[in-house]
């Protein structure tokens, strides 16, 4: 799909918990050629300290109802402003940006690992994989049970596994301590998105076990479409812009 800039009307603003909102925007004349892992750059004009747009993974799309969904965590002024938008208000969105995930081959066994607000792009990814594979495992990590959102939706997409740091849900510990990793070599592909230390740990496991693995990076961005060169990550072929060469990278291409 061609990149576009549009004022989108917010249809629903659902507060999933004190920190996380699901925002559903109407996209008139929806073009469904959006790939899981792509993102959008949303205007956050509220105060002098939110000059730039804010990037968010596309959480889901609903071509029939012409909507695009985001899962947004309130971490600062920009996300606060965006999640405070009222239904019916509109906001400028540039989308779709970046390259998405590489989909698996038919019937491969895949593991999707999300931490924190890194769960956002995995929903659309899981939905895209389902036609190819029944063997989808989704591992979500959070600090505490109350930080986990949309568990029902995720469990419809595959087998759900959970870790929390305080043990209030699922296994206690960090994501990478989950028992699923005991048999990790059964998986053909791992997809992960979340805090960098988590992704690095996952990538380490994948590389050690020689498992194909894609990570979705969340580098700070200014433009989101490849012109500012601010969002680079070091790859084996030098610095590459995350917003255009990524945000999804195969771990083998990164200097991790």
């Amino acid at each position, binding site marked *: 799909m061609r990149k576009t800039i549009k004022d989108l009307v917010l249809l629903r603003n659902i507060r999933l918990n004190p920190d996380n909102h699901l925002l559903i925007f109407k996209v008139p004349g929806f073009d469904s050629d959006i790939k899981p892992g792509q993102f959008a750059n949303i205007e956050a004009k509220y105060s002098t300290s939110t000059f730039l747009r804010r990037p968010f993974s596309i959480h889901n799309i609903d071509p029939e109802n012409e909507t695009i969904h985001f899962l947004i965590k309130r971490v600062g002024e920009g996300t606060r402003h965006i999640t405070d938008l009222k239904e019916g208000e509109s906001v400028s969105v540039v989308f779709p940006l970046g390259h998405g995930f590489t989909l698996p081959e038919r019937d491969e066994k895949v593991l999707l690992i999300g931490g924190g607000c890194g769960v956002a792009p995995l929903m659309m990814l899981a939905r895209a994989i389902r036609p190819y594979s029944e063997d989808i495992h989704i591992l979500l990590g959070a600090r505490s049970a109350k930080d986990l959102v949309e568990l029902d939706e995720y469990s419809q997409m595959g087998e759900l596994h959970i870790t929390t740091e305080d043990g209030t849900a699922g296994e206690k510990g960090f994501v990478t301590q989950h028992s699923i990793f005991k048999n990790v070599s059964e998986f053909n592909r791992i997809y992960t998105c979340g805090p960098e230390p988590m992704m690095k740990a996952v990538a380490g496991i994948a590389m050690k076990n020689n498992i194909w693995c894609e990570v979705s990076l969340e580098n700070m961005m200014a*433009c989101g479409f490849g012109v500012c060169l601010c969002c680079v990550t070091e790859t084996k072929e030098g610095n590459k812009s995350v917003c255009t060469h990524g945000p999804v990278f195969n771990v083998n291409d990164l200097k991790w």
Partner: protein
Amino acid sequence: MVDLAVKIDKLNLKNPVMTASGTCGFGEEFSDFIDLNRLGGFIVKGTTLNPRQGNPYPRMAETASGMLNAVGLQNGGVEHFIHDIYPRICDYKTNILVNVSGSTVEDYVRVAEKLNDLEHIPGIELNISCPNVKEGGMAFGTSCTSAETVVNAVRKAYNKTLVVKLSPNVTDITEIARAVEAAGADSVSLINTLLGMAINAEKRRPVLSTVTGGLSGPCVKAIALRMVWQVSKAVKIPIIGLGGIMNASDAIEFLLAGATAIQVGTANFIDPQITIKIIDGIEDYMIRHNIKDIRELIGGLQM
């Protein structure tokens, strides 16, 4: 109908709106958003003799009404530009200028020489004002003698339109402007970024990998406007004004202050269609004010 055309040396611009180096890639990146041929021109990103990886991440910090960058001239080098980029972009019907950077006078000259032969590159913009590289860059733009030296040398090697981009990090920008005019510049563009710094108080660390970086965006507009106005009184060559332009009104302010053309930088990040909106907005303004020829606005500030 209103006439938006302006002239910078031998360049005919269909309107005064260009995009600024380092904020518009090679132009192509905008093709989903705008028709590049509508622009007066665009300046491709800083090009050096040899490829450069630029500075480590993080290279960006948001500031009040602006941002700091420390990209550090990441680019594939001039040969890469000539062989891999130029063939893709040379058919655009607008003025494509290459922004040239270097660490030594010799570097600048060799890049300029190579670009001199490209038919569809009618001019270069000499970047003697980049605050994000260790050697060269801004150092050339903050003293009259070094500015003169580099412009003199490039002038001998380059016979198309030579624009020199000035640094705002100086006590008296008119001195530098006069020096580069005397050394043979056909035009000056200003301003490049102001040297700034950002700190993460919680982490007690600099935000940028390079500690300091270049400040751009609307926060610098008042300074840029003042410098354009000062320089317009000091030199005879045309001025390309930039720094914080976000809309048509900002652009007109720069024209009134004495700029013949303007560049849009950081604003492209927030709205990739902003240049077209600015062109249309200038046209609307002229119609509303009954101005037939945009040149009436240039330096048209009433005191």
